[in-house]
């Protein structure tokens, strides 16, 4: 009887989405506070003041519009990478192979840039981007099919596929895509021929007074669009619903009539398409060719950024920018302080760890709270209590 009267007089409870948003926000703030505190401790051990160090990093990162442009161009591939990771993660899949898919995407895109140059203007660029997606998709399909058909865990297979992808790039650069038009009498590092301008992504930064050296290209807005598309896919489309159902409980999803294998392969394909675009910033936005000493590891950084953004597409955009700010701050450490630049990698690591742990704790708290409230609403307060007592074991 107490339950019935309590719910009448009580203020209307906050809607669940707002509650989880507040919960996530608080968890993020707590995680950041802990990470900054631990980072400060390390800084103090180096005999520097945390304020000086963090201040120097921020001042350098935001010193002018070109530096901001550089941050956004660093963030661009990270957004694609983290989105690729998060798409699979929503369905309970760990695509550690984003790294390999991005490497293969660079190879297929370079092929299209070199051999589809008969296409006029913008069509050439679109074809190149499509081939990048296609390469990533084909490469992601392999672990997806293996997972569904044989049960081989995607973490092991994708890691192996990453190892193979490194050799694929090496083979392409030594064989079919090796440059043919070297400037005479010069030693050229191993790379493809320089692409036609029609294959390149145009510069965006000059519209905002950003120097061309920042390489801020139209890929950044494309990355934002990709984030919005992923958001719509998961919030408004059937596939997103099915993926979330599988991610939270594969058993219930199967009982609900969802074909798990089909959804998982679709997720791998979407993830691979996004992964294929990771390399476009460096290939089409910066170098204009595929070079031997390409920037690797972006797929792995994408995992960290996805965790930091809590697998939310909008959160990922901000997480990628934050990651880029920290990376940019490395240079400031070298110039202005005695703290080694490796401090930034440690700080990023601590941050990820704090976010993962705090988010997990907060999620459990919230779930327990909602369970209690639901119990109270249907008048089952007494049955909610033993559940709570059981937790005292913790």
């Amino acid at each position, binding site marked *: 009887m107490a339950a019935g009267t309590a719910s009448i007089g009580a203020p209307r409870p906050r809607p669940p989405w707002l509650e989880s948003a507040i919960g996530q926000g608080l968890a993020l703030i707590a995680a950041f506070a802990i990470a900054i505190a631990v980072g400060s401790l390390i800084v103090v051990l180096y005999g520097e003041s945390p304020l000086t160090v963090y201040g120097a990093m921020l001042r350098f990162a935001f010193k002018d519009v070109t530096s901001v442009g550089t941050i956004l161009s660093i963030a661009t591939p990270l957004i694609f990478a983290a989105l690729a990771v998060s798409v699979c993660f929503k369905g309970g899949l*760990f695509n*550690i192979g984003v790294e390999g898919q991005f490497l293969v995407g660079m190879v297929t895109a370079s092929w299209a840039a070199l051999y589809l140059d008969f296409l006029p203007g913008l069509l050439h660029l679109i074809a190149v981007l499509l081939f990048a997606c296609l390469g990533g998709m084909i490469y992601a399909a392999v672990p997806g099919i*293996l997972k569904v058909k*044989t*049960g*081989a*865990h995607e*973490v*092991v*297979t994708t*890691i*192996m*596929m*990453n*190892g*193979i992808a490194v*050799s*694929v790039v*090496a*083979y392409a650069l*030594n*064989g079919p895509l090796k440059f043919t038009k070297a400037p005479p009498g010069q030693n050229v590092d191993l790379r493809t021929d320089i692409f036609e301008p029609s294959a390149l992504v145009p510069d965006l930064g000059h519209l905002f007074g950003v120097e061309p050296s920042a390489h801020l290209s139209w890929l950044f807005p494309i990355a934002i669009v990709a984030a919005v598309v992923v958001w719509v896919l998961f919030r408004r489309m059937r596939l997103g619903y099915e993926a979330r159902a599988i991610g939270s409980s594969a058993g219930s999803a199967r009982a609900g009539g969802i074909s798990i294998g089909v959804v998982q392969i679709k997720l791998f394909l979407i993830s691979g398409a996004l992964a294929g675009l990771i390399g476009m910033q460096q290939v089409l936005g910066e170098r204009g060719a595929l070079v031997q000493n390409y920037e690797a590891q972006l797929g*792995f950084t994408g*995992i*960290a950024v996805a*965790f930091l953004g809590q697998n939310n597409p909008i959160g990922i955009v901000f997480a990628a920018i934050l990651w880029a700010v920290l990376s940019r701050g490395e240079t400031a450490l070298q110039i202005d302080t005695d703290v*080694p630049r*490796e*401090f930034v*990698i*440690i700080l*990023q*690591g*601590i941050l*990820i*760890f704090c976010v*993962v*742990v705090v988010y*997990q*704790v907060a999620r*459990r708290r919230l779930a327990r709270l909602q369970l209690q409230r639901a119990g109270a609403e249907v008048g089952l307060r007494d049955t909610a209590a033993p559940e709570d007592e*059981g*937790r005292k*074991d*913790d």
Partner: protein
Amino acid sequence: MDLGDIGAAVRIAFTYFTILYLTGLGGLFSERSGIVNIGLEGLMVVGTVTGAAGVAVFAGPAPEGMGLGAGGVVLGLLFGALCGALFASVHAVATINFRVDHIVSGVVINLVAIGLARFLSYIFFEQATQSDPGGPHLGRVDIPLLSDIPGGLGNAFRNLSPVFLFAVFLVVPVTFALYRTRWGLRLRSAGENPEATRSLGVAVAPLRWQGVLLSGALAGLSGAFLSVEVVGNWREGQTLGLGFIALAALILSNWDPRRLMFAAFLFGFAQAIPLRLDDAPIISALPPQFINMIPYVVTIVAIAGFVAKVRPPAAAGRAYEGAGGG
């Protein structure tokens, strides 16, 4: 290609066997206790840098090091194992105490390890990505009788690191501890059915902590072996995904320390193919980049072909709700 090449390939396979078996055993202890550990690679990475640093301190020449000789090298390797265990405690805190998803935590371990290794390297060696080559290592041993096999095959049993013998004989105490002691029974029960374990008055969390710490120590030792005994210095990225291949070997072995020996040798031999058997028939027809893919392809094929025939510990990867206090 002749028999000498095969002998040399088997010798390389023994080296990789050592790395994969030690790391795989680490994964075995962790997963048998119920904690999935895909952070083995990261634990190895920490072992490579700290092992190299430990050896430099304990066995390095007099002004900087203590010059303890072979004993110093052993201490250095053990230091790598200790640091691996310390780093694994992060995974233990996250998965056992905070009940973070095991794979998420393992991925974070791997990500953080790269940065941590650079940071430690900067502290130990004042350079971020490698230490000076040619550090001290243990003396090499020949196996009696086997090393006298004629025709080049004996090469496989010459000039081996004592750590290889340690790894081979480790199967005896590990199998005994796992299947013949009370502790082993409890550890396995924590990974199969923690609720039942708890109902018998046995605390699950300490067992899982022990499993994870052992995995860190063994993966750290394996990493230290790689940098100290195999390469001669620490270099960034020298683990080359071997931690994950060890994980694959563990799956192939059905989480059994005896079968793990065969799986580790199989994958170790696959690693040796690009290095020593690249002029064998069929293989020599491939472009060199394709030969480099062989170890990875072998791993994928083995996992895809055998995964349906194995059974992981029933509770591995599942959080135990009473873990904090019970």
